[in-house]
């Protein structure tokens, strides 16, 4: 009976660990997937313009000066074609897409809205930002006369696919563009402001002919973005931001969650270990006569030690098998229960086999470690004392 209770205890402990770890990985993966389908892994941007004092103080003289930060006008990245070629040679980089990002005004009749105009080369850019996946109307076509806009902007301007919209850039340039598609990124702000046009169109509108304001990059290993960004920065001498850096708040939150999850796992693991140890301590006391007899019959101390270590491992192993199943089913239930307003899943369910393997392995090792003290005690039992009871 006590074995059944401790098996249940181990199962509940492992179930909690599997459930929490699975939930955390799913939510984290969901966020990363959402972030990385709507932004590049790494972005190179033109360096800020800085003002320098005209007068340099001679040695031994102190000159008071006020240096004002200049307004940042739209600038192109110097030698961007060469940088792109250079980056494409690297094995860790999969896509390189030059873009122009500028602010503009979209006008339709009496309605006008400020927008962010992003000029792209669709063939490459769509490999970085999976915009076609978010198109709800029209085709992801971006010729020099086309514009792709968000659902909120379309609603505000009262337009649909095929309609024309006037775009006035900050430079004063004006173009009438045809709406080829409407997207929904799942974010109201992005749906109100983001628009996509051909690179040449954006260059012309922002008076930046032949230039680009940023180079978007995707890489093989998204978690190595920081390291690769640093290496690219050293290589090209520009400001380079990784998605990890631009989403630092998220990673702070993830790390906090990881720490609390690890702490919970640690405490649950400890309680499981103490549970197994207490059952085995009682078992050693209850079976001391049997142990004494086994010793009298020629069982060595090592054999007795192994019996109890194996028992601990089996308690951990069997309990964790049940616990993994319970944790998995709880997560599946929660996943089917939690839905978004439109009925779609709140987060993708990610249940890596490695999570279960790790849980079972960890619980078995915990069982062995927990069994160590009672096992040593059993092995060291004096057969005479044990038999006499």
């Amino acid at each position: 009976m006590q074995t059944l209770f401790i098996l249940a205890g181990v199962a509940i402990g492992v179930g909690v660990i599997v459930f929490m770890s699975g939930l955390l990985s799913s939510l984290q993966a969901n966020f990363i997937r959402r972030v990385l389908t709507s932004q590049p892994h790494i972005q190179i941007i033109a360096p800020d313009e800085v003002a320098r004092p005209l007068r340099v103080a001679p040695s031994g003289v102190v000159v008071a000066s006020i240096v004002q930060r200049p307004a940042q006008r739209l600038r192109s990245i110097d030698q961007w074609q060469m940088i792109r070629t250079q980056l494409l040679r690297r094995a860790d980089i999969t896509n390189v897409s030059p873009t122009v990002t500028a602010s503009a005004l979209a006008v339709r009749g009496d309605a006008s809205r400020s927008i962010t105009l992003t000029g792209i080369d669709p063939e490459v850019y769509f490999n970085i930002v999976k915009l076609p996946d978010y198109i709800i109307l029209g085709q992801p076509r971006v010729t020099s006369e086309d514009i792709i806009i968000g659902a909120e902007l379309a609603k505000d301007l009262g337009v649909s696919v095929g309609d024309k919209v006037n775009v006035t850039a900050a430079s004063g340039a004006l173009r009438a563009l045809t709406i080829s598609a409407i997207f929904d990124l799942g974010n109201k702000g992005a749906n109100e402001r983001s628009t996509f046009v051909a690179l040449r169109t954006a260059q012309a509108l922002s008076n930046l002919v032949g230039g680009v304001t940023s180079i978007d990059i995707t890489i093989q290993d998204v978690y190595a973005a920081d390291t690769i960004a640093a290496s690219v920065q050293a290589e090209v001498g520009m400001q380079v931001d990784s998605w990890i850096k631009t989403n630092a708040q998220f990673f702070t939150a993830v790390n906090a969650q990881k720490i609390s999850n690890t702490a919970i796992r640690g405490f649950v693991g400890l309680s499981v270990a103490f549970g197994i140890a207490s059952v085995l301590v009682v078992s050693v006391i209850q079976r001391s006569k049997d142990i004494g007899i086994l010793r009298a019959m020629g069982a060595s101390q090592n054999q007795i030690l192994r019996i109890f270590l194996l028992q601990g491992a089996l308690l951990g192993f069997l309990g964790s098998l049940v616990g993994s199943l319970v944790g998995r089913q709880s997560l599946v239930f929660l996943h089917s229960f939690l839905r978004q307003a439109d009925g779609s899943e709140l987060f993708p369910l990610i249940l890596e086999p490695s999570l279960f393997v790790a849980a079972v392995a960890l619980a078995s090792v915990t069982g062995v470690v927990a069994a160590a003290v009672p096992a040593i005690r059993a092995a060291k039992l004096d057969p005479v004392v044990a038999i006499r009871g």
Partner: protein
Amino acid sequence: MAETVPVLRLEGVTKTYNADTAAAVEVLHGIDLILQRREFVALTGPSGSGKSTLLNIVGLLDRPTTGKLFIDNRETSAYGDAELTRLRGHSIGFVFQHHYLLSAFTALENVMMPMLADREFPNEAMRERAHALLSEMGLAKWENNLANNLSGGQQQRVAIARALAMNPPLILADEPTGNLDTKSADTVFDMMRKINADNGASFLIVTHNNDLARRCDRIIEVVDGRIVTPP
């Protein structure tokens, strides 16, 4: 030659509990004892005389404080725990007043237990030997019964079969019939005599039952930690 070598020899064995302390108590005082092969000997004496301590020392479950102990002509005082365990497993069989069978296992599995601990027997050989021993004890029909489901006499016979599993030259029995009714006690005693006659194993039996003691080849009496009957 092997037949002439005693299976058990004690020379000046003493046992002191709490040695090196003020509460030191010497319970065995210079025991000399020889047990020949095929001998069937009773060890008697009043309670607290040191019989069980002597049996534990002979059974290599306890060490003498001084003196020498020879099992099969091997002097054991220099043996480490692992060597004592191996020698005990191969050379000595135990039968206790209580059967001490492992209740979670069948009669057959209980008899296999010493061979399992020895790890030198193939599985089939262990089963065959355990089956043969239980048949010899008249328990073949019950060999697949859990130990708890046997009668007291049957349990004690399974315990004897277990003691014989490794075919040891020496069987130590501590009040083997103490918990049994007269009929079962006679059956068990007759069984041990038969084994002694057929297998040639020597028996050293601790008993308070004078009738049974008289049916042994020889009686050794221990009083106050000394053998009062000449060996």
